[in-house]
């Protein structure tokens, strides 16, 4: 008996796809979109680069990466009255709640997430200007960061890529 059966074409459709994500924010809620998309892209066999700039450095700075904060201040989407959002202790409470929600979805904390991304073949780059401005040394950065590069080098790396700004 002869059968012709469907076989998935896992690789054919992604030949040269490449994704670059610019991570420019340092709050807990804004760290995750870039990390989640990078992880998903890598799982699809897409060449993926993350470029950390300005406040995005909080994500790759060893001192801050495990302690990113969330605040309801200036964020009407939380539906918290503005007068309450800025009270002492509110940021810590909001951060604690968000961390708990993230963990309950089985999404890893930032340092573990970065390791997952580099293990999956993702590339992490730090912005030269932010690095100099913040007077950091390479020892301050997560060890998976491949290099400190300028905007021009990023343009070379991102040639032909889809680029997202977060």
């Amino acid at each position, binding site marked *: 008996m002869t059968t012709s059966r469907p076989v998935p074409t896992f690789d054919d459709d992604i030949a040269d796809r490449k994704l670059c994500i610019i991570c420019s924010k340092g709050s807990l809620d804004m760290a995750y979109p870039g990390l989640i998309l990078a992880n998903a892209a890598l799982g699809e066999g897409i060449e993926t680069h993350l470029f950390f700039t300005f406040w995005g450095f909080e994500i790759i700075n060893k001192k801050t990466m495990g302690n990113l904060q969330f605040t309801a201040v200036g964020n009407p989407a939380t539906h918290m009255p503005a007068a309450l959002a800025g009270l002492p202790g509110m940021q810590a409470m909001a951060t604690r709640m968000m961390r708990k929600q993230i963990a309950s979805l*089985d999404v890893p904390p930032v340092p573990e997430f970065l390791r997952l991304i580099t293990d999956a*073949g993702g590339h992490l780059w730090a912005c030269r200007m932010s690095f100099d401005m913040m007077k950091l040394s390479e020892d301050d950065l997560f060890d998976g960061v491949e290099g400190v590069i300028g905007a021009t080098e990023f343009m070379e790396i991102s040639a032909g890529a889809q680029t997202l700004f977060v």
Partner: protein
Amino acid sequence: MLVTIAGRHVNVNEEGFLTEFDDWDETIAAALASDIGIALTEEHLAVVRFVRDDYQAQSTSPTLRRIRTTGGFDTKRLFVLFPKKPAKKIAYVSGVPKPIGCV
């Protein structure tokens, strides 16, 4: 649709993924792996067995992160064993649906 894999009649969906968990055995896994250019070894099978057990326990296919954190398999190694799209390829060879989790 009903098709023949490794001499057995099994059900697959339009993409070729097995639709019946119990249709699977290791001979069929070897045939599915060979379809997508993978020569199945004991190391592949260790991952596949974990994924099948986990699917049975959780009623959902594990994501790569779960295969690492719960199964204890190294992510880098998974990308070597099942290149480019490990989570989907592992699911295909394991006879379970594509994982739907984001992380």
